[in-house]
Each structure stands twice: as structure tokens, then as C-alpha cells.
């Protein structure tokens, strides 16, 4: 079974440093998964291409445009995602946040995620752990311990460049372990956990709770049930 990995890149320029980092992480993920005898399909989504769709969703109470609906379904159906943002004004970019703002709150439940960011200077590196990591924690995604931060100087030679490469491979290895993990455990031997299903919010969930289950806790007192005239 081939694993589907979606890379979300929020870079704006062309060519984009953010996209460059995203592609390097994508290659490392591919290598780590194939190195373990499995295969991976990597799809890159440029959030810039969704900018107008995101603005439409924001101004219409969340109407999914066809393109946005497709990406939201792709993301929720993925086996893992790589999210890369440039640092703007001491945080992730507005475009990056807009995308996550239009997702269903259950869209990333249990999703393995690599977080990464680019900036002009290494002094922004805590954006990963102070802004991006809490965003995914809120969405109940599983973020790998190694975040990948790349300042401009990390693309050069010397110590900085070498450590960027090693961080990318370490993050990719942690990610591959999560993506390929089998669900283990024997039912009945552990307390039942309220594990939340992942939903894109685009398709209506047809497995709706039967109405009597919704009604029961409200009518347990003195309700004769069937009507009396």
C-alpha cells in the first residue's frame, strides 16, 4: 500500500525558498519510506494557488470552492503532511493560517506532521515551537519532535548547511515511523479511548447518530413515548 503524503507550502515568491525547503523534506520523506520497504506518493500543494479560494471561504461563511474542497479532501485523506511556512512578522504567514482556519476542526485528527519554516535570520527559529506546533496540537495532529527551521544562511556551506540536512533527515525518519506504524493493541485489554475520527467536512457524514440516541438523555423522565391524544 502506497502512502499518500501531502506537502503544504505557503511560499509566495517564484522561485520560493519555502518551496525549496518543502521539496527537500519531501525527498527525504520519500527516501525514508522507501528505505523501509514501502512506497510513498508525494503531492505538493502551493497554498498561494488557493489564496482567492481562501478569501472566498472567509467572506461567505465557509463556502468551499471546488478547488478548496478538493484540497481539503486530499489533506484529510493523506497518511501524513508536511507543512512549511515562511516567517512573516514573527509568526507563520497569514496565508498559511487561513488554510488551517478553513479546515474542519476534525480534519487532522491523528495526522503525522512535519513542521518547517523559513526566514531571513535564525533569530526567528522559535516560531516553529511557539506558533506552528501549538496550531497542530490544537487540531490533534501528531507533530514529530524535530522541527525543520531554515534561515537563509543554512542553505550555504559550512556547519549551518550540514545541520539543516541532518535535521531534515531526522524529521523525515521520525515521520516515516509514524506514517508506517501499525495500529496495535488488543481490544478489551485497555480502557476504551475516545479516538476521534478524521473528517474533511466536505462530505456530509451519512453515518449520523440515530435520533433516539440523541433524544434519549432528554426524555428519560416521565415521557410516555408514543403520543396520547
Amino acid at each position, binding site marked *: 500500500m502506497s502512502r499518500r503524503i501531502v506537502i503544504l507550502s505557503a511560499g509566495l515568491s517564484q522561485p520560493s525558498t519555502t518551496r525549496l525547503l518543502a521539496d527537500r523534506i519531501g525527498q527525504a520523506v520519500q527516501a525514508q519510506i522507501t528505505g523501509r520497504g514501502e512506497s510513498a506518493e508525494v503531492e505538493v500543494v502551493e497554498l498561494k494557488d488557493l489564496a482567492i479560494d481562501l478569501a472566498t471561504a472567509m*467572506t*461567505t461563511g465557509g463556502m468551499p470552492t471546488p478547488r478548496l*474542497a478538493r484540497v481539503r479532501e486530499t489533506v484529510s485523506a493523506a497518511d501524513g503532511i508536511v507543512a512549511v511556512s515562511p516567517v512573516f512578522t514573527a509568526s507563520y504567514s497569514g496565508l498559511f493560517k487561513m488554510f488551517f482556519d478553513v479546515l474542519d476542526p476534525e480534519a487532522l485528527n491523528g495526522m503525522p506532521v512535519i513542521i518547517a519554516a523559513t526566514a531571513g535570520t535564525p533569530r526567528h527559529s522559535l516560531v516553529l515551537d511557539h506558533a506552528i506546533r501549538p496550531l497542530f496540537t490544537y487540531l490533534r495532529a501528531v507533530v514529530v519532535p524535530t522541527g525543520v527551521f531554515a534561515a537563509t544562511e543554512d542553505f550555504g556551506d559550512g556547519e549551518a548547511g550540514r545541520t539543516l540536512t541532518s535535521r531534515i533527515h531526522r524529521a523525515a525518519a521520525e515521520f516515516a515511523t509514524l506514517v508506517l506504524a501499525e495500529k496495535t493493541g488488543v481490544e478489551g485489554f485497555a480502557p476504551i479511548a475516545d479516538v476521534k475520527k478524521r473528517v474533511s467536512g466536505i*462530505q456530509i457524514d451519512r453515518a449520523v447518530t440515530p*435520533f433516539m*440516541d*440523541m433524544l434519549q438523555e432528554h*426524555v428519560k423522565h416521565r415521557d410516555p413515548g408514543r403520543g396520547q*391524544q
Partner: protein
Amino acid sequence: MQFGIFSVGDVTIDPVTGRMPSESERLKAMMKYALKAEEVGLDVFATGEHHNPPFVPSSPTTMLGWIAARTERLQLSTATTLITTNDPVKIAEDFSVLQHLADGRVDLMMGRGNTGPVYPWFGKDIRKGLPLAVENYHLLRRLWREKVVDWEGQFRTPLRGFTLAPAPLDDTPPFVWHGSIRSPEIAEQAAFYGDGFFHNHIFWNKEHTQQMVELYRSRFEHYGHGTADQAIVGLGGQVFMRRNSQDAVREFRPYFDNAPVYGHGPSLEEFTQMTPLTVGSPEQVIERTLGFADYAGHYQRQLFLVDHAGLPEDVVLEQIEILGTEVVPVLRREFEARRPSHVPSDPPGHAALAAQGPNSRHRQVMPAANLDAVA
């Protein structure tokens, strides 16, 4: 099939003239639209319910009672009545009185409301929106169907030995719709009781509406109220018409561009493509509206939004006139020609429901079969 208009009741500045109507003018204008609807042969007028500016309809039965006294045939309805923040006892009383005064020309649509602060203003919690809708509506059904109600629930002070006065007209509760844009639980609720399901339709794409209506239809059949295609469905629509479609687009564009809901967002052309909004000739509106049944199935009620975004009163009256004289007669003919004989044309009205007698399904609190859980 029934056709009518539904109004949000927003007080919005006219972006072309810069004129802001007063609250009083807006309320009176809504009343004129209702009278015009009857005059030109439309079937239904439905008002929204809001408890914050810039909206005026905070007391729908006051408005509908006014209209009832000045009309003969018009069906009076809501879009929607807030089942979450209103006391179900007061809803039962208000609509029971309205039923008597309007000789049964009354139905209503349940909705939850999406304005956060309205919930705490009425002592409720928006996070409990669905449980409130479930519990309050069940109590409402009992108040309209049982002589003496003993009730204890989670949200309302208990009732012991309560009898609704006045009882519903002919002991026949009004027909109820449930409206929801995206909550499958509400489609399930409508299906469970065999009530109608209304999809607002106008702010979102048709694929979404189709999924919600399909879910309702299949669950309606599951609960034994009839086949899926016999379920009672209503849809919203939004139109602006001129003889020449270019004139319609030119005249409506500033209202669209500045509309409170979607203004300053997608273009008129994009929104027209993605949603049921139709700005053009009456013929274009007819063609587009007939297409709704292609994905929602044969349905029973079509309500159009024509009076929002600051459109001036005379223009709205013209729109209602065009609907009544040019659009709806053709829609009636075409929809009925396509409708199979086993699918009802209209939602159940008072006379039909009263004629079904005291043992009919409509008079039962829970007429559903195939209950999935043990009561």
C-alpha cells in the same frame, strides 16, 4: 407546489443612494412584501427571527399576525424560529394563537441561530445548540399533542400538569420544517418525526445541498414515513430579474458587492456559478430553478430571497411582481408536469392534516418506525 418569499429582515444602507431605512420603514416594507406576495399569487411568506441589530424581526408572530389579518390565502411561515433560545412553551403558545387567528394558514421552520451572544442573552450556551434543538423541539411536539404535560428535561424548568391554551386549531399542530445548512443531525431530526426539511441553499454550492437533502430523504424512508422521494423538501433561492439580463446584472451588482453576507468577497459571476444566485431575465430564473429538482429531487416548497442588501422597496415590489406573474406560473406548470403521481405537490396544510383525524401520524409525538435504539 408552493412558492414564496423569505426575508432575513436586515436594515442595510442602499449602496447606490446611500439611504439607510429606519427600523420602522424596514418592518413596514416587509409587511408590504407579504401583501404583494398574496396579490400576485405567491403562496408563502416567511420571516426570519433575529435578536440583534441590524435586523428587525425579533417578534415573528406579531408580524405574521398583522399579515394574517390582511390576507386571505397566504401561508405564513418562519425562516427560522429559534428552537434553541426560545422557550418551547412560548413558541407553542404564540403559534397556537396565530393558527387560530389565521384560520390554520401557519407553519414554521425550526433553526438554531448562529449568533453567539444571542445564546447567553437568553440564558443558553451555543455549544449546547444541538441538544437544545433536540430537547426543546421534543417538548414542543408534546405541548401541541398532549392535553396535560409533565416534563422534566435538562434545559427548562420542569412542567407539572401544564395544559397549553389555546390548544392548536382543531387539535391539529402546525406542520414543522427543520432548517440547517450543514448539520446532518438536523436532517436526521426532521426525518425522525416525518417533518419537512428546508435547505437554505443560497450561500453554498449545490453538491452540499444535495448531500443534506439525500440524507434527509433516506432517513425519512428509514423511519417509515413514506418513500425517500415522498419526503417533504423545501429550498431557498435568490434572484434578481430584469427583462434584459445585462440590465439585471448592472443594477444588482452594487447590491451584491456590498451585501452583508458575501459582499467584498467573490465576484457576482463567481457567486452565481457556485451558488443558486440567479441574476438575469425571468427565463433564466425559470431555467435555473427547474434545475434544482435535478439534484434535490421533486420538492414541495421554493422560497426566494428578494429583499436584502439594501435593495429599495419599489424594486423589491417589482421583483415580487415578476415572480408572481412571469416566473412562478411557468414553474408550477413545469414542476407538476415532471412530478410522479406518488410524490406530493404541496407540504401538508392545516385542512389536510386536520382531516386525517385524531389517530393520524401527525398527531403522534413519535410516529417513527424502525427505532434504532431501545427507548
